[in-house]
């Protein structure tokens, strides 16, 4: 094996440009695959972090009837704050949120929104709720960037909100936008308006009510409370996981094409080598190599392409990947339109596992691709090979 490695190295280095072309293509595959997988991993981290920061905190309790996808049951999906939660709410480890349906009329257009009542002093979510305490001549409201964009509202704008209270009576009031936040989380931003929970309770005639509760800490002790469902952090981020999985599966096709391109180069070189280097193969056999050893040598030679590619890839790949991790990859199209938790600039995250798995997959694939054509050598007649006669 040691000898095969030594000879393979000499043969590869001696082959010059042919080797380096293969190595460069293969190294490109290494870097791009690691980068793309890093972007996916970064997106996953970022999406989850943003969701934690702006929407789900460390987990939630949902009213048993609450279904964020069913607007008809929304106004019934709330109940009085259970006594079991009082201590946690007092300590600031649990925040109640009241969610009702409403309609706003920006620039004369009608737009359905979810009105979320939230404590202005909460510190669990990164939503700038402290602005809800602003004293103005209308109800202070905070909206997300996506709502601001779709409704063309900005800070200081007034908009009419219409809602139906617990008795089914329609009412309306003027809101003033006191802040716009950006979270990359569509479910926290798009079609959402945040106002003071006490004000919303008053408007809805629902004192002490809440639709959901958000935990600060994901490792908090959950208690069973009748009428309320526990939604763990994992359960709430499952959708992101599924989405990333789907995207990753889609990207696998791209990895496969990249890998295929690189492997095609190696396979081509190996097949050509079997024909072009027949005399050399015959010489190895004449000098005392068994055919099995020659097959081994050619396989090691092919596999060594991936080792050289990993080294070359590291030379230009490490600075590139590090630069990407710091500066991120800005999507050329508006990510807010995708309807999923996705930042405009994605910051790739690379793990040791990701790098080693990629290198291992490429190396194993290269070894297999190198071995397949090399098997032909075993069937070669050494006397014919020595004469370089095509078989």
């Amino acid at each position, binding site marked *: 094996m040691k000898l095969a490695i030594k000879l393979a190295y000499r043969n590869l280095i001696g082959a010059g440009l042919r080797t380096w072309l293969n190595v460069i293509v293969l190294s490109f595959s290494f870097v791009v695959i690691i980068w793309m997988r890093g972007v996916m991993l970064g997106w996953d981290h970022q999406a989850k972090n943003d969701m934690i920061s702006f929407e789900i905190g460390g987990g939630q309790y949902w009213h048993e009837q609450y279904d964020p996808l069913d607007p008809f049951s929304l106004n019934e999906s709330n109940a009085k704050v259970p006594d079991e939660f009082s201590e946690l709410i007092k300590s600031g480890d649990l925040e109640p949120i009241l969610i009702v349906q409403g309609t706003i009329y920006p620039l004369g257009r009608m737009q359905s929104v979810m009105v979320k009542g939230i404590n202005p002093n909460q510190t669990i979510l990164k939503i700038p709720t402290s602005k809800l305490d602003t004293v103005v001549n209308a109800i202070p409201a905070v909206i997300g960037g996506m709502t601001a964009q779709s409704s063309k509202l900005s800070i200081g704008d007034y908009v009419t909100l219409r809602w139906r209270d617990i008795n089914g009576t329609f009412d309306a009031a003027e809101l003033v936008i006191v802040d716009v936040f950006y979270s990359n989380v569509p479910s926290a931003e798009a079609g959402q308006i945040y106002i003071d929970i006490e004000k919303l309770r008053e408007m809805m005639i629902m004192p002490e009510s809440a639709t959901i509760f958000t935990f600060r800490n994901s490792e908090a002790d959950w208690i069973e409370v009748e009428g309320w469902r526990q939604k763990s952090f994992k359960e709430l981020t499952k959708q992101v996981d599924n989405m990333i999985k789907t995207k990753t599966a889609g990207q696998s096709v791209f990895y496969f094409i990249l890998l295929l391109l690189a492997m095609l180069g190696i396979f081509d070189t190996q097949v050509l080598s079997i024909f072009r280097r027949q005399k050399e193969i015959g*010489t190895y056999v*004449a000098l*005392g190599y068994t055919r099995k050893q020659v097959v081994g040598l050619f396989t090691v030679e092919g596999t060594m392409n991936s080792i050289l590619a990993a080294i070359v890839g590291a030379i230009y790949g490490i600075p590139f990947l590090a630069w990407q991790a710091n500066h991120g990859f800005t999507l050329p199209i508006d990510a807010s339109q995708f309807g999923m938790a996705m930042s405009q600039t994605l910051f790739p995250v690379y793990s040791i596992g990701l790098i080693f798995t990629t290198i291992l997959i490429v190396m194993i694939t290269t070894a297999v691709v190198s071995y397949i054509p090399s098997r032909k050598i075993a069937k070669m007649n050494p*006397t014919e090979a*020595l004469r370089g006669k095509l078989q």
Partner: protein
Amino acid sequence: MKHLNSLPAEECSLWWYIIINIFCLKTNFMEIIQIKKLTKRFPMGKGEFTALKEIDLTFTKGEFAGLIGPSGSGKTTLLNIVGSLDVPTEGEVLVLGKSIGNLNQKDAAQLRKESLGFIFQSYNLLQVHTVYENVEFPLLLLKKSASERRKMVMDALEWVGLTDKEKSKPPQLSGGECQRVAVARAMVKKPSVVLADEPTANLDAKNSHNILKTMLNLNRELNTTFIFATHDEKVISYLRRKIFLLDGQVEKDVIVENPKS
């Protein structure tokens, strides 16, 4: 064995002197290659082509012999079988006591690695390796240490007068130089037998004579058996034994009294 031969009789007992000389004599005339009733047939279309017909030959240590004949006479086929690159269809070929027909791939490779050297018409050097690396190759297979390899390679390059070209690659060398590298590669491990297939076919007269003189010197100094396959007059003039082949059969086997030296 030289130093044993050169011991003065008075320093040894008479009996020791006799035993040593008998041993040396036996070694020198030991039959290292025995070919018995060798027939080689190749499939050709629906039938077969007989390349060698019932060849009987023996080669002793230190011979400088040649298989002479026109194209298709079976020279290379015979050389390939002796070199364990091919197997007999019928008959037996014993090389250093090993029956070529009964060797498996691994044993045949072992025989070539340890005891046989090859010189080819088109040199068959490893093009991307340097002269040094080409000559070093058989020693790598024999797992010699780096210092041993260095010494042996430099010795071999000195025999063929190429010490100054150790870092050159074959494409940078002339035909004569390439063949000298091939000779050095064949000789570096000091094999028992060197098989040379048309070694001068691609060389001019001057280079041919130089190569042949080099091989003759090595044959004398190292007592290596050289077997050539050739129809080149220049080579034939140096041979001490000429085996004429025609249509796969031995036509004549001649010992030359005064070959060119």
